[in-house]
């Protein structure tokens, strides 16, 4: 139960980072924290029926549920792609406007057009 409560905290911290932080790099941090919370929740779920790594060797019982782990490998890869793309966009925004602050960026872009 403690683990779940901690993960909920992590989730909320990530969401708060995405929503409330003005700096777009910190927003991307927030997105990663959010993602990590979901990943760990799945891993925790797989842990309910066993604790051994699901690499089948003889003499192993009580392996974890491998499906959440397989899913999360995919989710992590997607998370990395999204992060890379978000950083690329952030760099581009910085090159155009000279700022990482979302409000400043919005104002400067509006002034341009």
């Amino acid at each position, binding site marked *: 139960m403690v683990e779940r409560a901690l993960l909920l905290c992590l989730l909320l911290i*990530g*969401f708060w980072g*995405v*929503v*409330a932080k003005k700096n*777009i790099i910190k*927003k991307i941090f927030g*997105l990663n924290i*959010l*993602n990590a*919370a*979901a990943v760990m*929740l*799945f891993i925790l*779920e797989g842990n309910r029926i066993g604790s051994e790594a699901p690499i089948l060797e003889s003499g192993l019982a009580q392996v974890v549920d491998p*499906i*959440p782990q397989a*899913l999360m490998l*995919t*989710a992590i890869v*997607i998370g990395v*792609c*999204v992060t890379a*793309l*978000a950083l690329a*966009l*952030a760099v*581009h*925004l910085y090159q*155009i*406007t000279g700022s990482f602050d*979302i409000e400043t*960026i*919005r104002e400067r*872009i509006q002034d*341009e*057009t």
Partner: protein
Amino acid sequence: MRPEDIVFATVMLPLLGAALAFCAKLLPKGRVASVVEYTGALVGLGLPPLVLILLFPVVFSGQSVSGVVGQWFVGIGITFRFDALAWLVNILGFTIGTAAWVYSLGAGPKGPAFTGVFLIQTAALCATIMTTDLFNLFVCLEIMGITSYVLIPTSRKAGATLASFSYLMVSASAMVFFLLGTYGFYRLTGALSYEGISNGLQAISSSDTVLSIVSLALLVSAIAIRVAVMPLYGWLPDAHALAPHAVSAVLSGVLIKTPLFALSRILFLFPAGMQVGELMGIAGGVTAVLGVVIALSQEDAKRLLAYHSISQIGYVVAAWGMAISIGVDSPAGTSLMVAAFLHAFYHALFKGLLFLSIGTTVDVAKERNVYILRDSIGKLRAAGERIPVTFMCFVIGALAISATPPLNGFVSKTAITYAMKGSLHYYLLSAAAVGTVASFIKLSRIYWPTGKRGRLHPELGILPGSSANPQTKAYGLVARLTAQSVLAVLCIAGGLAAPHILTIIGTLMSRGGTNIAVPPILYSTDNLLKTGVTTLGGILLFFVATSKIGSRVLHTIRTRPRSFQGLFVSFSLGTAVLAAFLVVGKI
């Protein structure tokens, strides 16, 4: 050839095409690279329609091809289902995708990288509509999302990068919540396929019902962001308005509808699906009205079209939600579903057409403000377009979206309102129709002549490939005009051949013809009268909107505050309302 062997071609061929396009990027620029790139596009966009033709007899007879990817065991592998719904959405995707890609040859963004990403997007939407596995749906939606975040800023406008970034942040965060919804269902049922989850949900205890409802609410609102239903529409206007024209056409024609139809697969099976349909239907009706009100207030030509996409998707969602809430297996539900798909398809055609023709116009005029730009026909002629094809295309598109007979928009809007007569949605959509007419009168002003004949426009852009600009290659203008004309012809044909198309879609949607949908009577006096009244109302509304008070109100709507945080607030509120609605419905 067994159908099982070829259904995956709709996903694999675009991916193969994308691989070829990226190979072309590695080659030095020149003839060979172009040949490889165009071969890739041909493989990715030209061959899948042939596969779809081969599959037509299968889906038309009410069968579907389903199974597990890669012959894994049921329960472990990813399940898929290729049925009439998938077939129809594929047709939609490839029609608009091909037209948009051809247009991009003339208008940009050009190059193998663009073609490659574009083809991956096409593959992703084919996969999205075929999958019946929750986690696979997550992956497909993410691929669709990532490709659009890449394609939107290719217009090299500063605002497009910001729009893409906002879209990425809100959509990627929503997808984490989608993942949490998936977690909820996996925890409850131990399954990921829709069928497995729905079977598992029948056996859960009542204390777990709340978890299943919250999970469903998370899934639905993450998808609703992609569909851009009110109040989750905030990312769309900037993204669609500032993307390259060809990308705008695909985004608003195909990409906002595919997740909606993919969601219907979940809602058909899950216990609380009907209530979700009910709430989404009401949200759709409201979206149709609010979207058109904001559209009427816009001054940027493409942003006006973007708000119309929101309004028109509201029509689709209203019919779709109502169909699900009364059950798609009943005749009334089937006719609503047919109407919803028909409008989704026809909207893709005429909105694609509008985006492309307005795109050509604003490229030439170098001015996007509806209040400033005038005499675009003259400007297009000066830029090298001898016959006013672009203007004619715009007129066809505008008449179609305003539901003028016999164009396709009339057919699909009549089919929707016919099926929902007397309900709240009916009145909402009728009001939206009046606003649509008014805002397209407003938009058509950019073509009105100014009265100064024979004025030269030295400051204007010149279309590459036109006779006025002999240095550039000739295919540029041809590509643009071909794409526009094909869509225009399809708009007219879709209206004229409506009875046949309605029968075909009706048979497809009723899965083998056990309960054929009632085809609506299109050209009754009632319907024609309603069209007349709507048009008059639209003209009246246009004059009200251009009056002093009207323009002040519209100015207030246009300059309403919009912020990054607003996207997330509306997402959280939307999810909470949906969850509350479902919980109350259960108790």
